[in-house]
């Protein structure tokens, strides 16, 4: 787990990203967590690693599986305590 910046009065909690525990700040989007971990959000149809692009729910490059639900746009969803994310 990489060190996280601390925000004043910021709450933090733990999510599980590709099997690893990661501490995130309240309000952080799942896309930001994936980027912070240096991971790909998805593999393209020919198998290329892709990361989120538009940040506003349009491009679908950020989609990953959240709590068993596939193809979720991670840039529009905030992390919740105990959330399980499978990306890449």
């Amino acid at each position: 787990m990489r060190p996280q910046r601390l925000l004043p009065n910021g709450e933090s909690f733990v999510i599980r990203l590709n099997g690893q525990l990661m501490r995130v700040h309240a309000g952080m989007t799942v896309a930001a967590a994936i980027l912070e971990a240096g991971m790909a959000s998805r593999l393209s149809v020919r198998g290329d690693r892709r990361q989120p692009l538009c940040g506003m729910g349009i491009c679908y490059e950020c989609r990953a599986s959240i709590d068993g639900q596939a193809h979720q746009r991670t840039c529009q969803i905030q992390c919740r305590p105990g959330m399980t994310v499978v990306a890449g």
Partner: protein
Amino acid sequence: MSEAFDLVVVGAGPGGLAAAATAAESGMRVCLLDDNPSAGGQIWRTGLGDGPVKTARRWLRRIEIARVEARFGWRAVVAPAPGVLRIEQSGLFADLEYAALVLATGARERFLPFPGWTLPGVYGAGGLQAFVKSGFSVRGKRVVIAGTGPLLPAVAAHLRAAGARIVSVVEQAPMRRLLKFSAGLLGGQTGKLFEGAGYALRLAGVPYRTGAWIMRAHGDERLERVTILAGLNVFELEADMLAFGYHLVPNTELAQLLHCKLDRGYVRVDELQRTSVKGIYCVGESTGIGGVDKAQLEGRIAALATAGRPDEARTLTGARDRQMNFVRSLADAFALRDELRYLPEDDTLVCRCEDVPYRGLGGCGSLREAKLHTRCGMGPCQGRICGAASEFLFGWKAPAPRPPLFPVEVATLAGVIESAPARDN
């Protein structure tokens, strides 16, 4: 499940907030909808631990006091009957009935393909700004910002404040056009943003190159460096991240689904923001890219018109028309140069959803033909990214969108099927 409102506003950016607050203060029952988890749109997106900016905070207080029903994290996907919008959130859906509808769906960045643009480490300019505001750290990272538009210096200033090392800002427009644009600025919020960000960058010694553009992004697993063309010079810069975008394209899909007519790619409206469809209004970037001042004015005009106060609405149209001059000067200043059409190589992907390369697309006569032959535009973004790109590359007009506007769960579609017989009888 269905709920009825006097007014539904789609999009909670500056235009939508202004429309919702103004209408609710006139006594209308208003629902304000946004796909994002919170209000403010892209321009007023807040960082973790930051409160909303002052203007946004004022509107947020007003929608709360006026009891606007806010539905954030929901998006409109289909129109099952006239006067009804079906909205969706992670597989849940609900129907909203409306007497009047304000579309404030904003704009997205235009992305033009170049070799390497799909590498990890290459992000949208506004995209990277949004990721940083939602918790991604760029501290100490070397970032190149490229493309065109007033957003680039603003993004650079924001990322620099977040600790990034801005290697260069690369603007394709020539300096003479930018000087003309700066000289003609109205002094509104959008203009100030551009000028203020440019000033901050000059103070910080960040090179702002004009008449220059990205030719290629290099890297194995992720971005390592970029090739830039500036005049006759070609040079490489090492970078951890590239943030790029070629100004904005309006989000007109919902307006088109509801049969509102477009005019040169934007939603056509009259002096009171009325579209070609009775009861449907459009405000903000979808009627012309012009920024926060224009969007708020248009939101107020549309709301006053729906609330039966057209005379008050007309007191604001003069100011709105002056903003339309700014729309035209923005479009002129940041018009795309022809050379950008020749950046993709044969194996450069144009459609990122379906991995469709440039090779072969030029032989198609339209996006529809390209869809049939290559699957270009058939992926989950439904052509929102490659449609804007191929319009520039090949001159193709994007075909009218088909429902649903976004991929949705079967349960949501099942709701559509159930409501179909009533409509057919």
